[in-house]
């Protein structure tokens, strides 16, 4: 059956191909040649150049800033989280404490959750659980409902997951790979993560393995310079795997605590580019295991976030999620679906444009901010 399907598939596709061929034969004379989806790779074996020795300080460059410590960042940034998330909690509580819980009230609750990009599945789960509890416990006081709501939301966010960022192992730096689709904030997150780690007293080497996007390496360099992290970069259009490899080696030689590698944004549907990412990871692993693969997800992303996470997990086995741009009106409900379906926890949240606006994710704080200041 399985192989039958394969053949049938190939047959269909060959047919499509044949159609394309016939049509293209007609069109070719009038149109430019179609091109293959592959990023041009410059001459093989480009030697990435290390711009600075990691522990050589920062000769003549900007003053090194001292970032805020990581601890308590989320608490400090809670007001921003609340700005974006309060609507869920408030709306829900208003509905739940309205007294009579009719079907249309439940529908409204459902819609409120859906508006947060929570997705149809998790929403229905939460509704079902709340419904049962309201029926069983019969509580309708606002306090009681608030408590239930907090518990149920917390259950969805699942506080039991391990959300620690991998720390350096014995005698080698921890290697963190930052991946994601275009425009989610990978480079920015990499820069902020470096600050976060440095704030905790670690030494950090950054690898600018985004050799594709114009000026991406410069952008990372700017981040690195600000906090005094060495940046290993290659030529634009060079082999990202080579840059990543060199970054890890530089990190190991300099006995840095952590190496953070920024990769080019790629849509999960581009097979060629996903293969390239797989290669980056494999090449790095020749030297040192990759301890953490962070998928950067934009909080505005809708249900497609799940598709992204699924493919990235398949290719590079993501171990955590960095949810960015949560300071806007978007609520990032998609991470709940991602956590639930794929078991990959949210580890970091980005809450603004400031250099220290990246915090470790804390489910309790997160839920508190959701239902807290009611």
């Amino acid at each position: 059956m399985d192989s039958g399907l394969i053949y049938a598939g190939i047959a269909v596709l060959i047919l499509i191909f044949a159609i394309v061929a016939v049509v293209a034969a007609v069109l070719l004379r009038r149109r430019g040649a179609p091109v293959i989806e592959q990023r041009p790779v410059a001459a093989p074996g480009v030697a990435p150049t290390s711009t600075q020795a990691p522990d050589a300080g920062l000769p003549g460059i900007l003053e090194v800033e001292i970032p805020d410590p990581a601890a308590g960042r989320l608490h400090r940034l809670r007001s921003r989280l609340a700005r974006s998330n309060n609507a869920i909690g408030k709306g829900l509580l208003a509905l739940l404490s309205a007294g009579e819980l009719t079907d249309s009230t439940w529908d409204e609750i459902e819609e409120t959750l859906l508006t947060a990009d929570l997705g149809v599945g998790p929403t229905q789960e939460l509704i079902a659980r709340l419904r049962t509890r309201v029926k069983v416990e019969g509580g309708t006081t606002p306090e009681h409902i608030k408590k239930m709501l907090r518990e149920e939301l917390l259950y969805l966010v699942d506080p039991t997951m391990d959300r620690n960022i991998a720390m350096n192992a014995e005698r080698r730096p921890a290697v963190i790979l930052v991946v994601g689709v275009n425009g989610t904030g990978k480079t920015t997150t990499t820069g902020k993560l470096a600050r976060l780690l440095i704030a905790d007293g670690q030494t950090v080497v950054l690898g600018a393995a985004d050799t594709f996007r114009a000026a991406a390496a410069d952008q990372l360099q700017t981040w690195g310079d600000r906090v005094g992290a060495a940046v290993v970069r290659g030529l634009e259009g060079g082999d990202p795997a080579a840059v990543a490899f060199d970054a890890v080696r530089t990190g190991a030689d300099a006995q840095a605590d952590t190496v953070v590698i920024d990769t080019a944004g790629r849509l999960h549907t581009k097979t060629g580019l996903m293969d390239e990412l797989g290669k980056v990871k494999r090449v790095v692993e020749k030297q040192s295991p990759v301890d953490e693969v962070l998928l950067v997800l934009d909080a505005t992303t809708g249900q497609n976030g799940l598709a992204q996470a699924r493919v990235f997990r398949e290719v590079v086995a993501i171990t955590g999620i960095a949810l960015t741009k949560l300071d806007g009106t978007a609520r990032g409900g998609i991470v709940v679906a991602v956590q639930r379906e794929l078991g990959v926890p949210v580890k970091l949240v980005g809450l603004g444009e400031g250099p220290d606006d990246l915090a470790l994710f804390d489910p309790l704080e997160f839920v508190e901010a959701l239902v807290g200041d009611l």
Partner: protein
Amino acid sequence: MFANLADRLAATIKGLRGKGRLSEADVEATVREIRTALLEADVALPVVREFTAVVKERALAAAASGALNPAQQIIKIVHEELIAILGGETRNLVFAKNPPTVILLAGLQGAGKTTLAGKLALQLKGEGHTPLLVAADLQRPNAVDQLRIISEQAGVAIFAPEPGNGVGDPIRVTREARVYAEQKLHDVVIVDTAGRLAIDAELMEQLRAVRDAARPDETLLVVDAMIGQDAVRTAEEFAEGVGFDAVVLTKLDGDARGGAALSIVSVTKRPIMFASVGEKLTDFEVFHPDRMASRILDMGDMLTLIEQAERVFDAEQTERMARKVSAGEDFTLDDFLEQMQSLKKMGSIGKIMGMLPGMGEMKAQLDQVDDREMDRVAAIIQSMTPAERQEPKILNGSRRSRIARGSGSSVSEVNGLIERFGQAQKMMKQMGKGGMPGMPGMPGMPGLPGLGGGKKSKGKMAKAIKPAKGKSRSGNPAKRADQEAGIFAPTAVPADLDISALPPELKKLLG
């Protein structure tokens, strides 16, 4: 993966088939399915509510009229309504009477403004304009450098007096850019601004000031196709804050369903002007409402598939194949191998097949398709000598056992491949004779609405396809022969979305 709308509706309506017409309760249930499908496509809730109300009304009317095949009716209604909203007001860029025409790009962080600026500039340059890119994103580190590199790639001028990285005043840059463009006779000015959140009052104030300095003829809101429920709020606030004339949808080359498109258009009443479909500067096109509608509903989209195929198969290869097919030459194992390898670039077989209309019910099976099977087939072919690949007939028992050993497979697998290949060869020959076995139904498919409505090349494509339709309807003997022989039934792409019609046939043939 989520089942698509067609499947959902089919499941809901299955029980009603016998009745042949819909009751009010049935319509209610169906509308609920449509609601879920739209929500899963990230269409914003208020828009979904409004939309389903309209659909419900029309569906009830259709039900009252006793229309046959309710599922199809409803899908048609939904599709029509979607196109009506999405394509209501398409239009092109309006150029100023007195140049320069100023185009201002605004949007959230990471929507793709800088890249889009380059794409737009390249496009306009191709149309004979002399665009000037203005680096007014002085916020994000090295955004100015990025725009500079892009301007070099596109071969257009850039105005970037400030280094960026938080240094410089975008308002002044924009004001000076206008003057500069007038002096240097640039007839189009494209202003790339920093990404910002619509609720950031300070930055929105700044954007208003930039707008006033630029006096744009067109303000384009750049929106990521992957955006979720927040699309409406963002669009509304941008509309209120600075106002915009049209929308550009980026990253449409991903697999996001892009419900945001529908939300934004229906809330702000602004049209979607362009779509950005890739990372290269040339991956830029005019927006096709009909295809977006199919995409939101996750109905098979043959055009997208064909386009993807075009991207993957290179021109030379395509031409060679076309010649072969039309000359009636034999399709060899080498060709087969080459095509299979190209296909792999398009993604998993299951996914590609899922794009074909009517494959919905196969989805569970498609998900299980093991793509490594293709590698095994490739290994078998690669274990053959060139002569064997040209002429599989010479494969005798000893050769077959050698191939099996060489590829780590069994003789029966080799036999299976050769047998199936023979069938494929036959099919290709028949196509060369003019009958396109798979084509018959295409024009009737809802997944392919308005074939002629796309860009020019699509129009041609439609023309190329249409003659096949006539033949098939009149009962192409070649096709009938194929079907009777049971060869490659899946190639008979279902004529309409009568979903249940296909799978049994498919299953039988695959069994």
